[in-house]
C-alpha cells in the first residue's frame, strides 16, 4: 500500500503541474495580443571579454591561488547574469517569432521562422552554459568556454533585426549594445 501512496502523490503532482502549465499556456497565448516585449540588450564585447580564457590565464598567473578563486567566482557570477539575460531574451523572441510565423507576408513568416529557430538554439545553449557555469563555481580552477552562447547570440540578434525591419522598417531593433 506504501507504493500506492507514493504513486497517488506523484500522480496528483503530475496532474497539478499539467493543469498549471496548460492554463499558463492558454493565458500566454491571450497575452500575446498586446505582448509588451521586454528585451534587455547585452554588451557582447563585455561578455566576450568576461569569458575570454586568456583573461583567466592572465589572472591565474598574476594572483595568488585563493585570490584567483575568489575573482574567478565573481567573474562566473557575472557571466551567469549575462547568460540569464540572453536566456530571457531568447524566450521573448520565441514568442515574438511564433506570433509572426502566421503572417501573410512570406518574407516576414520566413524571418520569423529563422528567429524562432535561432532563439530556440540559444535557449538550449544557455541552459547548458548555465549548468557549466554553476559547475565551474564549485571548481573555479576548471576551464570553461561559453563562446558558443556569444556566437549564437550574435546570430539571433541578426535574425531579430531582420524580422524587426520587415515588420516595421522605420525602427531599428538591437539586441546587442555595442560601443
Amino acid at each position, binding site marked *: 500500500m506504501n507504493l500506492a501512496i507514493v504513486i497517488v502523490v506523484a500522480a496528483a503532482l503530475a496532474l497539478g503541474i499539467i493543469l498549471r502549465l496548460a492554463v499558463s499556456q492558454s493565458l500566454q497565448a491571450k497575452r500575446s495580443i498586446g505582448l509588451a516585449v521586454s528585451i534587455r540588450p547585452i554588451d557582447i564585447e563585455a561578455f566576450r571579454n568576461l569569458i575570454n580564457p586568456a583573461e583567466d590565464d592572465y589572472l591565474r598567473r598574476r594572483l595568488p591561488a585563493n585570490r584567483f578563486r575568489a575573482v574567478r567566482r565573481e567573474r562566473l557570477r557575472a557571466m551567469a547574469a549575462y547568460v540569464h539575460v540572453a536566456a530571457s531574451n531568447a524566450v521573448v523572441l520565441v514568442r515574438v517569432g511564433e506570433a509572426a510565423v502566421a503572417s501573410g507576408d512570406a518574407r516576414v513568416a520566413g524571418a520569423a521562422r529563422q528567429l524562432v529557430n535561432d532563439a530556440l538554439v540559444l535557449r*538550449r545553449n544557455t541552459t547548458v552554459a548555465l549548468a557549466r557555469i554553476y559547475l565551474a563555481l564549485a571548481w573555479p580552477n576548471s576551464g570553461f568556454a561559453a563562446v558558443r552562447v556569444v556566437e549564437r547570440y550574435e546570430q539571433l540578434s541578426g535574425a531579430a533585426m531582420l524580422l524587426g525591419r520587415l515588420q516595421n522598417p522605420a525602427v531599428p531593433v538591437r539586441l546587442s549594445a555595442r560601443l
Partner: protein
Amino acid sequence: MLQPHSLLWHYLWIGPHVLQAALAVLLWRRGLHRQFPVFFTYLVYGAAEESILYVMDVVPLGSVTAWWVVFSVGLIIEGLFRLAVVGELFFHLLRSRPAIAKVGGRLISCMSAVFVLLATLAAAYAPVDSHQFAIGYRATILQQTLYMVECGLILFLFLFTACFKLTWDKATLGIGLGRGISSSVHLATWAVMANGGLLQSRHLLDFLNMATYHICVLIWFYYLLAPQNSFATSAVHLPENNLDIWNRELERLLQQ
C-alpha cells in the same frame, strides 16, 4: 450481467464513448483526422472496444474470464494507441522547430526508457498475494504500468514546452490536456487497485475513472471543435522604444 449497476454507472460507462464516436465523426467531417490520424484512430478504437465490453457485460456474452481476456487484450492495444498519441503530440510540437527536434527526440527517448523502467519496478513490487480474481488483478497492474509511462511522458511534454516557451496550437493543447488529466487520475486509481487498496469501495474508484474520462472527452470537444481564436496568429511587433532606452543607458554606463 456480471454486476448490478446503477443508471449513472451505465451512463458514465457508455456515455463518454458514444460522445467519443461522435467526436470521431465530426473530426472526419472537418478533415481533422488527417491532422491527427493517431488520435482519430484512438477515438474510433476506444469507442468500439468499450462498446464491445459494455455489451459483453450487459447481455451477457461469454464468461467472466472471457470478459477479462477481451478487456486485457483491448487494454494492450489501447495502451499502444495512447503512447502513439503522445508521439503524435510531440511530432506536432517539434515538426516546425527543427532547432530543437533532435535534442527533443533524444530527451523523449531517454524519458521513455526511464518511465518504462519505473513502471516495471512498480509492477514488480505490487503485492502478489492479492485475493482478487487473477486475470482481473493482472489487468489492474497492466493498467498501472501503461498509465505510469503515459502520464510521465505527457508531464515531460508539458515541461519541455514550458522550458522552451513553445506555443501549442489549440487542438494539440486540448489533446495533451485531456490525455494528461486522464492518465494522471487513472494512474492514481489503478495504483490503489493494483496494490490492494480500498477493496470495499472499488465502485467509487470506477466512478472516478469514468467521470474523469467523460470530462476529458468534453475537453476534446471544446479544444478540437470550437473555433480557434485569432490571437494565436496575430503578429507581434518588436519593441520600438525600450531597446533604444536600454542601449542608451548601457552605453552611458560603459562610457563612464
